[in-house]
């Protein structure tokens, strides 16, 4: 199940399209328990990334370009975390040919989010969508199933009390809302499944 550079760039384009479509929703989620910018942040990041991946040759260069763009254009928590995710996924990807071990690349990306943000599953962050997806892939599930796992993880953030990110400032009041980063991460994994299909 290797992914070509074209498919990977399709992933980013698909993620950009999904972010654009759901931007208001992501921002609304962030209004409820954060600072109302998650949609705008990701639109800025994905729009800039699309310009930078034009003609990138090879999985590593492509993912690296995406990571660098997120870091230098987005700011906030998500810019840094998604940026690290792509940079580390790039390092776990080949310079040429196909990305064959998708699970390993995603695991490397996720590990860097954890390393930077010190959050764990259940803290009501993007990790709650990414971890079940990566674990599913590692267990041999399809990308489509991984995307469903991410979506289930996203939904499961709703009742949680946040322990990381801005939502943690709300204490008990953060319960009852889906985490915006988990929602965008679910879009990310779904876009990957669709690009690979």
């Amino acid at each position, binding site marked *: 199940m290797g992914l070509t550079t074209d498919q990977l760039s399709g992933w980013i384009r698909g993620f950009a399209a999904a972010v654009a479509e759901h931007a208001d929703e992501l921002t609304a989620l962030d*209004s409820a328990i*954060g*600072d*109302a910018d998650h949609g705008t942040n990701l639109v800025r990041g994905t729009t800039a990334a699309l310009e930078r991946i034009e003609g990138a040759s090879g999985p590593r260069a492509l993912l690296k370009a995406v990571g660098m763009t997120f870091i230098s254009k987005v700011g*906030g928590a998500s*810019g840094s975390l998604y940026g690290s995710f792509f940079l580390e996924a790039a390092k776990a990807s080949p310079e040429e040919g196909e990305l064959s071990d998708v699970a390993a690349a995603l695991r490397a990306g996720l590990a860097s989010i954890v390393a930077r943000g010190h959050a764990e599953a259940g803290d009501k962050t993007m990790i709650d969508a990414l971890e079940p997806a990566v674990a599913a892939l590692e267990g041999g599930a399809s990308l489509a199933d991984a995307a469903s796992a991410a979506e289930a993880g996203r939904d499961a953030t709703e009742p949680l009390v946040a*322990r990381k990110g801005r939502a943690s400032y709300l204490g008990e009041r953060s319960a009852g809302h889906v985490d915006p980063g988990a929602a965008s991460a679910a879009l990310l994994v779904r876009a990957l499944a669709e690009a690979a299909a």
Partner: protein
Amino acid sequence: MKKLIGDPSAVIADALLGVAAAHPDQTVDHENRVVISGAPREGRVAIVSGGGTGHEPLHAGFVGAGMLDAACAGEVFTSPTPDQMLAAAQHVDSGAGVLFVVKNYTGDVLNFEMAADLAGDEGIRTATVLVADDVSVEDSTYTAGRRGVGTTVVVEKVAGAAAAEGRSLEDVRAVAQRVSENGRSMGVALTSGTVPAVGKPSFDLPDDEMEVGVGIHGEPGRRREKLRPASEIADEIANAIADDRDFTGEPVIALLSGLGGTPQIELYVMYGEIARALEARGIAVARSLVGDYITSLDMAGCSLTLVAADDEILRLWDAPVNTPALRWGI
């Protein structure tokens, strides 16, 4: 949304044009969105801060002699990027190193960390002081910890004064850290602010309610309550701060900041009540500031910050400063 702006997505670039026009003592790097002090800094430590836009005068309003050497402006309520912070450090480093003043938000912390790495790669020494002073947020190692709010102003002032004395990066960081550790804040909001790109208030608040324990990013507070008279609000925030740390027996710097949409007359009414409440708790205010210093767009409300100040901190607080938003002695 009723705002004096043009294209909502250009609000930061547009505001920086205004900053450049209004303050010829400052230089604006429009590409990187960095505001740079015109004060000389040869051979001394430079102080750099930055954060999301929407908290004016924090940080660009504190750029100038005796305070910040540069400030980076992120998008509204969004930490700036490491590139911006690196550019700021490059603009102002003269070899003695750069102190980053960072408010404790995940985004700010992560981006400043990366910036410190990048600066190191460029041969620039950096140190960081983190501000995490909001007592309305639980202080726990399992969470993101407390937000950084009003104490930031005092940290920036004191760090700038220490740098102006020609002290080492380690020294400057140490005194800035002491300010940070000895500061506590708490805020209340009567209305929600409106993020320009969003166009509507971040939260709805009925006409007879207020949010207690708000930060500066339009997030709701710890709880919602019936709107109460200034005296009761003052008691609540003064007591929350005084319960968190004992401020008796030390001179205190008190900062009462509006949140952007509150007129001065209300701030003075509040400050009268705050002064009464602090006196009742045996807290002696040595220096005070009342006005808009750390805001949240057009939110109505206020935040109180107390910093316990030793002689050195008081001396550095009193040292000359010349910035758009804080000026004395020059």
